[in-house]
């Protein structure tokens, strides 16, 4: 095993690392916006609002993210007659829509868990529906969402490795490329990439815990987040 060759090629990971982080961040942003939109829609009492959101969510949860990635990269351009200048857009759209659909369930669940009395009180205070959502419901639902959203953010980071198979130059792709060159050990490069992903996952987890603590303190609850384990907190019924 040639450690020196691996260490010397480490700087080449810089730019692909930005791609991995960028794809994850962009699709997480898309997923978050979508999760709130779909979550509020599926929590609606009106069937005309609820039904389309429900169909969208079930559709994207039910068909595999890998298939969606290929569909957006290679089938959608044909169907719509558009060409992506950067295939990276297809990756971000596929990951964002898929994880948006999963996370909308988190949003819906957290909104449903806000005590009924809070809603009754806000009606009694004559708040408009918008004020009710903005001032009463969401501030209480948000801290409840964070652990689950954190688990999904880590899942999303891991899924972002998939964009390498549609030809986006992220760290997984680079490891495969350098690994084929003479004098390089492919196993070591994949191991380096695994460690990078693990560190990124740990960073997301640490950041989300800090966020959760702050959000809870904002409510006057000084509950420490559940004891530290880097694990999908939503394991029970998260990614079905």
């Amino acid at each position, binding site marked *: 095993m040639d450690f020196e060759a691996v260490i010397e090629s480490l700087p080449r990971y810089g730019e692909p690392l930005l791609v991995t982080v960028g794809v994850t961040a962009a699709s997480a942003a898309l997923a978050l916006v979508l999760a709130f939109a779909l979550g509020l829609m599926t929590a609606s009492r009106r069937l005309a609002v609820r039904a389309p959101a429900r169909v969208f969510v*079930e*559709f994207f*949860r*039910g*068909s*595999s*993210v*890998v*298939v*969606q990635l*290929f*569909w957006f990269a*290679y*089938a959608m351009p*044909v*169907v719509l007659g558009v060409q992506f200048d950067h295939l990276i857009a297809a990756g971000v759209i596929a990951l964002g829509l898929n994880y948006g659909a999963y996370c909308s369930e988190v949003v819906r669940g957290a909104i449903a868990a806000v005590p009924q009395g809070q809603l009754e009180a806000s009606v009694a205070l004559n708040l408009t529906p918008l004020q009710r959502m903005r001032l009463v419901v969401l501030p209480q639902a948000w801290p409840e969402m964070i652990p689950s959203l954190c688990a999904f953010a*880590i899942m999303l*980071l*891991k*899924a*972002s*490795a*998939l964009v*390498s*198979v549609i030809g986006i130059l992220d760290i*997984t792709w680079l*490891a*495969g490329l350098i*690994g084929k060159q003479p004098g390089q050990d*492919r*196993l070591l490069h*994949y*191991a380096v*990439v*695994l460690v990078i*992903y*693990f560190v990124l*996952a*740990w960073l997301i987890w640490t950041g989300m815990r800090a966020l959760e603590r702050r959000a809870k303190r904002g409510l006057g609850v000084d509950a420490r987040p559940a004891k530290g*384990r*880097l*694990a*999908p907190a939503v*394991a*029970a*019924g*998260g*990614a*079905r």
Partner: protein
Amino acid sequence: MQTGWSNATVREIFPAMWDGFLVVLQVTLVAGVIAVVLGLLVAVGERNGPAWLRRPLSGAFQFIRNTPLLVQVLIVWTATSLYVNPDWSAFAVGSAVLGVHYASYTSETYRAGIDAIPKGQWEAATALNLPTRRVWGAVVLPQMARRSAAAVGNWIIAMFKEVPTLFVIGVMEMIAEARAFQGQHYTGAVEGYTIAGLLFLAASYPVAVAMRRLEIRLAKSHY
């Protein structure tokens, strides 16, 4: 160059996609058994295994849980084909990696299920002087199974939908079949990937609904 949907292509590509779908089911079965059994062993090992085993085991599975399946598949496939035995099939290696990856999730579910068992149950088992095997076999595991059944089922559904990742090492599931078809006929991207998505939807949605029902029923049966 393909311009849009074509029913003729659908008729041509469907048998290949169906073969791919059957491969997905086979992988799910093999990897599912690994995930269910290994996950349980890991959960029990992390809790009651010998002290020297607990930390490395939990560390290893934490690492597996937080790194991408795709890279794990690639690294194991490279290792086995270069250093172990180049004759091992992609199907076997891919199923094993997928199973171990999902065992890292199911073990967390089992762990939560064991943690949720009231302390009194353990104390009663001790008071009755039950041997360790009976404590687990007759008291802990049956209660844990009811708490974790639906969640483990959900992980298996999630795993089913991640099988296409294995196309990178040449498992002939649906993505690989669609790509092979495109390589031969220069068409079929729209039809192939759409069929793949619809087959996944048709297979996973009813099971997901059944799991939700099971979850509600089991939640009611708790005391």
